[in-house]
């Protein structure tokens, strides 16, 4: 499913989107499909499935550990695409990974495989806009969205450039830092959301981990929230994982209504 279609559906229902991140292959490649199914069943609108990279510099300890578990358990690029092909969920799927894994396969080849597997968008935290010209062209040809990130310290000039080149949605990083569960979300996010001059939906991520955060972000003007570490911590606990994932997903989704 296209990302834009999902956002239109939600707009009609007057809801915001819950975007759920998990790392493919965590705790092992066999378990990931059941985790994704549980998230979708409980109300996640879009799934961001991480393709694990050995050196994830934009991630905090929680997702770093998930990445290690997944690679240890045998996750790799080939299995990733096979897994996605076999998933039977009717929500947009986004591939989140680091640029070397794409570059290594050849961007064209990688993006083609994404399209064949049914992936709708790409998030690459270490690929800033000015290094992405080639990839943007290829993604356009294959009908894959390029989701770029903006941060609290992004200049107005770059905000405009990023807004004009992004597709799918704009990923608004809530804080200066790496991914990970946070206590409080900065009150400056509203100002940042206001400054972004774009028709695309704006999704806030980094540190969002409970219903209160979600409600604050919705009130601040977010069209979507991205939650990752909160799910990954449950997966890491090995304790009642599926039912706890469903429970928190329902609660977070309530905050989007």
């Amino acid at each position: 499913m296209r990302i834009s279609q999902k956002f239109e559906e939600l707009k009609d229902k007057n809801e915001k989107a819950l975007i759920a991140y998990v790392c493919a292959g965590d705790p092992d490649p066999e378990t990931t499909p059941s985790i994704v199914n549980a998230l979708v069943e409980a109300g996640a609108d879009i799934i961001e499935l991480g393709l694990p990279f050995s050196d994830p510099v934009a991630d905090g300890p929680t997702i770093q550990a998930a990445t290690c578990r997944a690679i240890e358990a045998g996750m790799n690029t080939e299995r990733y695409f096979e897994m996605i092909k076999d998933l039977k969920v009717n929500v947009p799927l986004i591939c989140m990974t680091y640029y070397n894994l794409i570059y290594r396969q050849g961007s064209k080849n990688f993006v083609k495989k994404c399209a064949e597997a049914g992936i709708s968008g790409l998030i690459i935290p270490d690929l800033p806009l000015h290094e992405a010209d080639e990839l943007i062209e290829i993604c356009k040809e294959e009908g894959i969205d390029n989701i770029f990130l903006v941060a609290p310290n992004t200049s107005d000039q770059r905000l405009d450039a990023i807004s004009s080149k992004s597709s799918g949605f704009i990923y608004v990083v809530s804080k200066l830092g790496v991914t990970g569960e946070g206590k409080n979300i900065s009150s400056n996010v509203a100002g940042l959301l206001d400054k972004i001059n774009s028709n695309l939906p704006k999704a806030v991520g980094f540190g969002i981990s409970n219903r209160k955060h979600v409600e604050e972000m919705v009130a601040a003007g977010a069209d979507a929230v991205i939650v990752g570490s909160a799910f990954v911590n449950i997966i890491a606990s090995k304790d009642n994982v599926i039912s706890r994932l469903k429970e928190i997903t329902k609660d977070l989704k309530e905050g989007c209504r």
Partner: protein
Amino acid sequence: MNHYYGDYGGQYVPEILMPPLQELEEAYEQYKADPEFTSQLNDYLENYAGRSTPLYYAKNMSAKYGIKIYLKREDLVHGGAHKLNNTLGQALLAKFMGKKRLIAETGAGQHGTATAMVGAKLGFETMVYMGSKDVKRQLPNVYRMKLMGTEVVSVDTGSKTMKDAINEALRDWVTNVSDTHYLIGSVVGPYPFPKIVRDFQSVIGREVKEQVMKIEGRYPDSIVACAGGGSNAMGIFYPFLDDEVNLFAVEAGGEKLREDDKIAYHSASLATGEEGILHGARTKVLQNRDGQILESTSVAAGLDYAGVGPELARLSETGRVKPCYITDMEALEAFHELSRLEGIIPALESSHAIAYVMKMADSGILGDTVVINLSGRGDKDLQTIMDMED
């Protein structure tokens, strides 16, 4: 502004790092020719670092190996390695930029030590990230950093070496961009770091040019330097790029030139790596079929790195610089050989460059006059050597 060296280089970093990289580039272009900046830096280089360093004619080694061998004595720089040339430049720049805090990665602990020195001298809060494997094998340097008031953070992820220390330093920088300068220790990372570090290290090559002219009346046939990230190599090579001098970058051949899906049993990224993206730059990288970065291996912590500076990758692609490698065992032999012949105990990193000259002296490819960049002294490695002899 062109951020590339041929196809190598660029800025593959999270969006949060774009403003500080731009700020750094602007500040560097502004201050590098500023009379106050350059006169302070030159004063520090002379009176704090102890420059210029001698170009020493290694008579006994020359006699034994049958060619004229000169050692550029960067081991005599305060702290015991070339690293201080760069940290003085960058810390002063950070001071001019109004930064309050320095962070750095370190492999051998030499760059960490050189950062701790400038941190103490110029009044920065200083934090150094170091792989836990390196903490164990370079303990004297860990202690030196602490003595100078630097906090050393042991990094226990991935290969537990320099690659992982850089990851952690980047995460810190992303979190503390406004008041912190990331004082990167080699010609690696996103632009403008490869350029800034190369420029500050080029003092080595500029001095050699003058010194060798005075002694020999001509340039040497070859210059040989070890390459981890490539800063001592770029520093001595750069002023000679347009001259008829052969340039050899000696990488760590480790145990052997073999890789599996997770581990490279060496650190020879120029000689065997493939194009990839690591730590913000497109360069030669040790990686598996999927693009996962391999754990590298070397007896020399400062060479134990899966990437290499983009400009050095470019120069070796064009053939201007010849990449080569030396195994752990060969480097250890050279360590002992130089100690016995000249009474100079070299760093294990620099021992790779020495070993290469010993190995190739007869072959003719070095010519008859060679300069080796003796990038550091070996005191930090004594524990490693003693353990190996047990």
